[in-house]
């Protein structure tokens, strides 16, 4: 049962990254792909009806994590106190920027919120990646299951008192930025036409190259830092499908971008992200938060809630997800197709 919830929480996090990922990415590049005010409004219109729903996946994933693995939630959220608060502030600035930009027709107002939207989106991408890097590298958990990580210490990931930022987590953060930018560019290419579409496709190609270039050192340094992450792949070779999905996504994206298959490119960047996240989770399992000292690892066994709680959760969670899937299919179908400049707000 705990294993199932491990998979379900991962599923929600992957959904968050796939969905909010493209509007995050769009935010991180909109100042480059959209030059005029009209073009920037097109970007906002492409994500306007859906970004809020996308972000709900993060909130829902947080809630799901909280009740299925309360010990993990408490330990990681208090341990990552400072970076999480910064993530919070960035999420807030970003939400406000998207919604308030169009309320005043003044160039300074628009410029200010464009900058806020850009900075918060780009930093969020880096921070989310660095967070993943921290979970992979391990944190200084003590015997009571708690820790506190400062923002940085010596920038050495192998140190016994690592900080949130070291060269490894920053590297993962940059990879996250690269792929989210690519994902966002793929989405904008799919949703727009004309000059905006051309610039988005060019940026997607550049982002694809950066992703490719960063994937190699990140993967190598991961196994160098945590050689035990090979273990699960050696024990259960079927797990190779996850990294394979990521590699296929990467190759497919290159092919689709060259052939101007916008939908295929978006699916491919999604496959890459889902594959990378699933590979990491597969390699970590049954650990949910590895410790610098392996004796203090948080695993699905010592962090999970009661079996009864997990069982009833499964019932309502399934109903809730079916409903959410219906809404999402419904809304994305209604708003499918390219956005045009004439109708609607923004």
């Amino acid at each position, binding site marked *: 049962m705990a294993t199932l919830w491990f998979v379900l929480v991962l599923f929600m996090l992957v959904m968050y990254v796939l969905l909010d990922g493209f509007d995050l990415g769009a935010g991180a590049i909109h100042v480059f792909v959209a030059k005029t005010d009209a073009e920037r*409004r097109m970007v906002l219109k492409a994500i*306007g*009806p*859906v970004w*809020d*729903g996308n*972000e*709900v996946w993060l*909130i*829902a994933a*947080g*809630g*799901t994590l*909280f*009740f299925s693995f*309360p*010990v993990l*939630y*408490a*330990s990681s*959220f*208090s341990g990552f*106190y*400072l970076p*999480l*608060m910064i993530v*919070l502030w960035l*999420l*807030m600035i970003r*939400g*406000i920027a998207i*919604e308030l930009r*169009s*309320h*005043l027709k003044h160039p300074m107002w628009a410029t200010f919120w464009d900058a806020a939207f850009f900075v918060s989106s780009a930093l969020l991408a880096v921070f989310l990646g660095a967070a993943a890097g921290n979970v992979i590298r391990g944190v200084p958990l003590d015997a*009571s*299951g*708690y*820790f*506190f990580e400062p923002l940085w210490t010596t920038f050495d990931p192998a140190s016994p008192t690592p900080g949130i930022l070291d060269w490894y987590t920053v590297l993962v953060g940059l990879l996250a930025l690269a792929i989210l930018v690519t994902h966002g560019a793929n989405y904008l290419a799919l949703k727009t036409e004309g000059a905006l579409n051309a610039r988005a496709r060019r940026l997607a190609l550049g982002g694809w190259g950066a992703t490719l270039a960063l994937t190699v050192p990140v993967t190598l340094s991961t196994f160098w830092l945590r050689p035990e992450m090979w273990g699960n792949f050696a024990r259960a070779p079927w797990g190779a499908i996850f990294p394979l999905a990521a590699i296929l996504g990467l190759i497919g994206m290159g092919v689709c971008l060259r052939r101007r298959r916008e939908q295929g490119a978006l699916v491919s960047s999604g496959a890459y992200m889902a594959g990378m996240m699933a590979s990491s989770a597969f390699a970590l399992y049954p650990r949910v938060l590895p410790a610098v000292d392996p004796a203090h690892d948080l695993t699905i066994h010592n962090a999970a*809630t*009661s079996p*009864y*709680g997990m069982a*009833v959760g499964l019932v*309502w969670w399934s*109903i*809730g997800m079916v*409903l*959410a899937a219906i*809404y*999402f299919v*419904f*809304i994305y179908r*209604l*708003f499918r197709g390219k956005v045009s400049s004439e*109708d*609607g*707000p*923004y």
Partner: protein
Amino acid sequence: MDDPTLVARWQFGFTILYHYLFPQLTMGLALLILILKSIYLRKRDERWNRSARFWGKIFAVNFVMGVVTGIPMEFQFGTNWAKFSVFAGGIIAQTLAMEGAFAFFLESAFLGLFLFGERRFGQRLHWFSALMVWLGTWASGYFIIATNAWMQHPVGYRSTPGGGVALADYWAVLLNPWIPAQYMHAMGGALLTGACVMSAVGAFYLLSHKHEAYGRIFVKVGVIAGLVASVFQLYPSGDWSGVQVSAKQPIKLAAMEGLFQTERGAGIAILGQPDMKAQRLDNPLVVPNALSFLTYRAWSAEIKGLDAFPRDQWPSSVPMLYYSYHIMVGLGTIMIAVMGLSGLLLWRRRLYQARWLLWGLMLMAPFPYIANSAGWMTAELGRQPWLVYGLLRTVDGASPTVSSGSIWFTLLGFAGMYAVMGMLFVLLVLREIAHGPEIGPAGPESALGVSA
């Protein structure tokens, strides 16, 4: 000042009080917008549709503020209250996660449709999305009240060997007997906020002779809804909440009422300042026997005072609790009076000319906000010193590894950010009100133009 628990409490209190300014309006407005939209579909009078669209814009800005200020609430359970999260996360996070799964997805999906879809998808779907948004916001309220109800009145749990609690009966938590009274009172308060804001804007239009046709609509809908909601807050929902507190949390009741000594035939203090040293109310103005009657329906029933309980079980700030409660009740009474009088004049068709009363309606806009905040403080200060009533003390719930310095840092960060956000918010809403409902292209073919 160096006590992490205390600073964490301030931070939670501050962020949740600020957060609740927004959902209380959106929960109320969601219902009022649905009403406006329904009347439009019946009458096919474009003014009602423009009214729905106008309030939809105000709703949208409030909704975003509610969402962004709501995210910290979920985070803070883990960041600031880690031991509480370990202790009770298996239970309270069930209802929190259900809010995400059942309310947030619904709200966010259909709000997008409501704001962007009128022109493309027609009136019926627009009405339907308004209905779904209303259901979503009220479902959201339910799950939050259910979460809080478990902290006020824990049920459906069993103790675990590790010293925590585990879920034992899911339906008991979801159907906690604490929920109905509290939920009704909270939703009634939200509707009252929506109604007061709507009638205040309407009164402003009538007083300033701008958009007068809309002013009349807003005043009419706002006053009718406000009258229903304000009376509902007194009876049955407020009365029921009071009886519930007296039965399950008698210390809270004694502190709320400023009742230091146990009394038969206890009265209700209208005025008076709690004197913690002398353990009495200074300058009391008391309605004799009223408290006994309201609590037990018997004029001479005995009510336990604070002296009946050990000092370490008293709420940590009796005066703050006392004043919160009295502010809520006092403002509630004023709102019933103003709404009642306005309802009477509306019925006699004299309200739109009664400028003095329109002034009253306009200036009353902040009252429900203050009353709802005070009501929340009454419920929560009264729960102290417990984090989970009777099970976990607040001092035992904070994060063990987070220093008070870190919490100060983030508290100041929130304060600065919320100050800027608040100014922008007020600026935008006032601008929206100044523009009025007539801005934007007419007819069902126009979308709810946020930038129109």
